[in-house]
């Protein structure tokens, strides 16, 4: 059963007085446990796609059904709720909060869901251990290497056990060795049954997925199944 379903999704921006059609009718469906890569040249609607999938934005037309819920007409507060419960973001530039420790960063999504202090601490330590940061609980992001920061971000994305992990160029800011490590981590998570969507322009990253969706000019140009 599909947990992500896009039905004729369109997105139109106003740039001054000019209408920009970022997405011109996208139909997609991802199943639970799938590993999908979305690729495309710049201007193809990749970022818009990411923002829509991440519930940071609403489509101008069409439907987005996430886990059986139509999120395309939700208001701001409801979308915030959906983001905290259903979506785990992994950003290119990690996006950790500088003044918080490793554990506190992982706890942020739980905090907005109203977890108790004790529970959320337990969950955060568990996840930190899972991504291999068991000894760095109290470090600040600035005291960690890029790879370690991205691990914290992965742990944070997993915190509320979301439906989908949404990774935006997850290795873009990393050297190839640590990049490989992060991709290995994502592969492991996928093996554990997580649904992962990566947005990238790197063929090497896309090759980790099962399916590659290529966007051109706001439309799905083609879909490829990655050969193993």
């Amino acid at each position: 059963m599909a947990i992500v379903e896009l039905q004729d999704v369109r997105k139109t921006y106003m740039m001054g007085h000019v209408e920009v059609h970022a997405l011109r009718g996208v139909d997609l469906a991802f199943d639970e446990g799938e590993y999908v890569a979305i690729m495309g040249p710049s201007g193809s609607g990749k970022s818009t796609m990411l923002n829509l999938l991440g519930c940071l934005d609403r489509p101008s037309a069409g439907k987005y059904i996430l886990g059986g819920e139509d999120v395309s007409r939700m208001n701001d507060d409801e979308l915030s709720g959906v983001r905290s419960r259903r979506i785990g973001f992994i950003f290119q530039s990690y996006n950790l909060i500088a003044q918080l420790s490793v554990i506190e960063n992982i706890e942020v999504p739980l905090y907005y869901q109203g977890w108790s202090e004790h529970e959320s601490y337990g969950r955060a330590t568990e996840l930190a251990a899972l991504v291999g940061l068991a000894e760095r609980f109290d470090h600040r992001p600035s005291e960690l290497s890029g790879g370690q920061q991205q691990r914290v971000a992965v742990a944070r994305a997993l915190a509320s056990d979301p439906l989908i992990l949404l990774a935006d160029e997850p290795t873009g800011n990393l050297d190839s060795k640590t990049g490989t490590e992060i991709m290995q981590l994502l592969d492991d998570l996928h093996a554990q049954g997580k649904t992962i969507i990566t947005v990238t322009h790197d063929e090497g990253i896309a090759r980790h997925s099962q399916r590659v969706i290529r966007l051109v000019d706001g439309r799905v140009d083609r879909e490829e199944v990655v050969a193993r």
Partner: protein
Amino acid sequence: MIGFQVKRTLLIGLKSLWLHKLRSGLTVLGMVFGVCSVVAMLAIGEGASYEAQEQIKLLGSTNIIIRAVKPPSGESASEQTQRVLVYGLTYDDAERIATTIPSVQVMAPEREIRKDVWRLHRRIDATIIGTVPWFTEISSRRVARGRFITSMDMHTTANVCVLEPRLVEVLFPFNDPLEKTVKIGREYYRVVGVMAPTGKDAQRNKDAKAGGVEKGGAELYIPLTSARSRFGEITLSSGSGSMDIEEVELHEIIVRVDDLDLVVPTSRILRETLKRFHKKQDYEIIVPLEQLRTAQEIQRTYNIVLGSIAAISLLVGGIGIMNIMLATVTERTREIGIRRALGAKRWDIIVQFLSETVLLSGVGGLSGVAVGILIPLAVERFADMRTIVTWWSLLVAFGISALVGVVFGIYPAYRAAYMDPIEALRHE
């Protein structure tokens, strides 16, 4: 649950503020100055008003005081040639006031003579006041020990006297003054009573101790009749190369009326009555009630001025907070984006930034209250002014500071909450 959320929110706020210690500190300082100036100004204003009203109340609000004043000299050459300067109130004035003005309830005339008072080898330059038995009642003074002058003393023109505490201090430092004698001029007077100290005396004692200067307050009361017969009406005072001879019958008449409402009309009648019998302006009429009202009026103006200044400094503090919070919001745009992406609702963002401003203004408010309590103490110690810190002024100052925090925090918090999360995430 709610408690945890609040604690957590405040903790996060504290952490973010701690990141910029100097900036947060300076912002708090702005608030501290605002609040402490409110507290200090209210305390000083309250003290000053209390002091003024106490002093006037001491004169008695239903009293009217008529004092003899030396008319300005050198008005005309002919007066200069006159050897004896006659001025002031007379026994006739007193009689006339007592008999013709119906609203006058009690009237106490008095004479003042400046003379040295001796006890063995101890001497003090004192003011001898000849007065009537009901002086204590009319001036709201109390006799601490012994008794005041009686009508019997008046009849017999007795050589008795009542001392002010100041005189006891100087003349009888080691023994009990009652039933002892003091010498004034050539006569000996028996001490029959000692007055209770007034608030003014306490203040004066403090002054004397602080500065080592002995000021007046050395009064000694004798029966009016005795004063008249022993010292007469003529006073000789020799200055450098000149001699002034003055003739004054009465120096002061204190009039008490039945009712507060009668004070002002009675004072008007008194003025008219006296004008008729005095060619020169050799008296003045002091109406404590009018002074009290003027003092209250001045106090009100004073309070408004002080309050406005304090309010402006609070406002400046508030603007400082707003300024810093706006800078913080801009600086932390990305953090806001991250938090929004991770599920923070707009309200969560508002609460987060508002809690920071409330922390800033709250800490500022508390420290301001603390400093604000210390300032009046220092003022009291060094400027020798009375100050009163009232609990409500602390409450008001702190309340306003908290309010300022919320009011000036709303806009930056609102701005943070209504950012587009996508834009915010892209912000460098």
